[in-house]
């Protein structure tokens, strides 16, 4: 049964709009210019302050998502895909929960959908999530809005793996953000970074943290730092703790480091897997891994 929404009083219309999910609002905005203006005016009067707009550019798929609450749940409100994904088929409707637009130039398309959604809700881009093919978004967002990004996330791609080291170096040096930097990305064993990072609230290296040196750790300015896949040694930690005790890294509240998995083969051929631990070196150069907890101590020597 149809419901003539435009004939309802202003208060009712506002109430209905406020009950819609962001993806439904974006979809409704495509009904007519009139509706689009009405929705824009609604958000001009009151921005949804708790909403966070994310620009996602990953595996040849541009998306705009919105987090409506602090539990981190994201709703994709608009998508951009490459025209080739249609593969000559007719456009099917209703398979997606939000409008999908197909472009020859996916970068242009992603920029267009971000412009559209930010314009509709009067929101700035809060965070950028990208793979190595999407790092253009950092400069693009910095040039289009005064407000600094809240977060940056670089993730590995199934499609693009070239220039991984250069990409991470570029992102670490150029991304400006106020809250968090998340990294789940593959770089070579030779990758090194000699710059500073932060200030930020959170740094989370979810995998392949082997490149983080003691100097890096000292130069990361964050409240919470979590590094997984680390190769830091016990002397690195000693140096870091001396640095901290001298009053440096003063903002740090939480540091968690987990280590790469190492497999030791004992003399009888038995394998022992160390998932984490400190790496130490004897004066003659022989290296060992140590794990300890309040209840036990484990040491494996490399031969």
């Amino acid at each position: 049964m149809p419901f003539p929404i435009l004939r309802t009083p202003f208060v009712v219309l506002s109430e209905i709009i406020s009950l819609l999910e962001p993806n439904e609002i974006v979809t409704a905005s495509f009904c007519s210019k009139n509706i689009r203006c009405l929705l824009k005016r609604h958000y001009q009067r009151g921005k949804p302050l708790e909403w966070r707009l994310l620009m996602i550019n990953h595996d040849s798929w541009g998306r705009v998502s919105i987090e409506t609450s602090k539990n981190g749940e994201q709703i994709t409100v608009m998508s951009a895909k490459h025209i080739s994904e249609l593969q000559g088929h007719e456009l099917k409707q209703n398979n997606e929960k939000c409008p999908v637009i197909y472009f020859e130039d996916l970068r242009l398309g992603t920029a267009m959908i971000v412009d559209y959604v930010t314009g509709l809700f009067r929101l700035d881009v809060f965070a950028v999530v990208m793979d190595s093919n999407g790092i253009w978004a950092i400069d693009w967002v910095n040039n289009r809005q005064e407000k600094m990004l809240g977060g940056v996330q670089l993730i590995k791609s199934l499609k693009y793996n070239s220039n991984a080291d250069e990409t991470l170096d570029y992102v670490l040096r150029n991304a400006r953000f106020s809250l968090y930097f998340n990294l789940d990305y593959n770089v070579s064993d030779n990758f090194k970074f000699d710059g500073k990072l932060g200030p930020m609230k959170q740094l989370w290296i979810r995998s392949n943290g082997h490149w983080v040196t003691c100097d890096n750790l000292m130069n990361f300015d964050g409240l919470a730092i979590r590094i997984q896949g680390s190769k830091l040694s016990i002397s690195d930690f000693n140096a870091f703790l001396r640095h901290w005790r001298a009053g440096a890294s003063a903002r740090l509240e939480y540091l968690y480091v987990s280590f790469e998995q190492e497999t030791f083969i004992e003399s009888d051929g038995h394998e022992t897997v160390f998932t984490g631990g400190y790496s130490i070196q004897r004066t003659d150069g022989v290296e060992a891994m140590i794990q300890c907890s309040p209840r036990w101590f484990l040491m494996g020597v490399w031969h």
Partner: protein
Amino acid sequence: MSSTEQGTSSAAPAEPTTAPESAAAPEVPESFYYVHGKDKVVHKVSAGALQHSALIHGMISNLGYTEEQAKANPFPFENIDGDILQMVVDWCNQHKGKPTPPEDTNLPKQKEKLFDLVLAVNYLEIKELLTYCCKQVAMMVKGKSPEEIREIWMIPTDAEDEAAEKEAKKRAGKEAAGETAAAAGDAK
């Protein structure tokens, strides 16, 4: 539940037939008021149930009616259809003195009446019922395409909006021309 009577006038309603619902707590006699819609059918509603409506609650507070005066002067809501007012009164009675749960199964389900119900509820300023009705309207477009939403919410296309705008301009032009001609005639 409310009582209803057919064919009585707003000025002199006949005695409502149904006993009040307050059998469970009869210690303090509950006061009742009377309302009628477009069809002049009078509904007897307790003051507790009417608390839901900010408009009626305000009227009651301002008028300071005794029960006798209230019986003689039902609140007239000529802009609300009788069946819609019945739904609203039923809902107010069911939710007398309790908050509305998020998923209220006692709410009116007739979708064909939803538009009129929304207008009535908005007019009567019943906040909880309005929110529920608006949720129903919002639910209508869940998972729908723009074309489907346009159909469900009766949204004109851009072409239809443009045509309507042209028509309105044309009409306004004609009216303005007519007024100018009339003014010129008067001047002569």
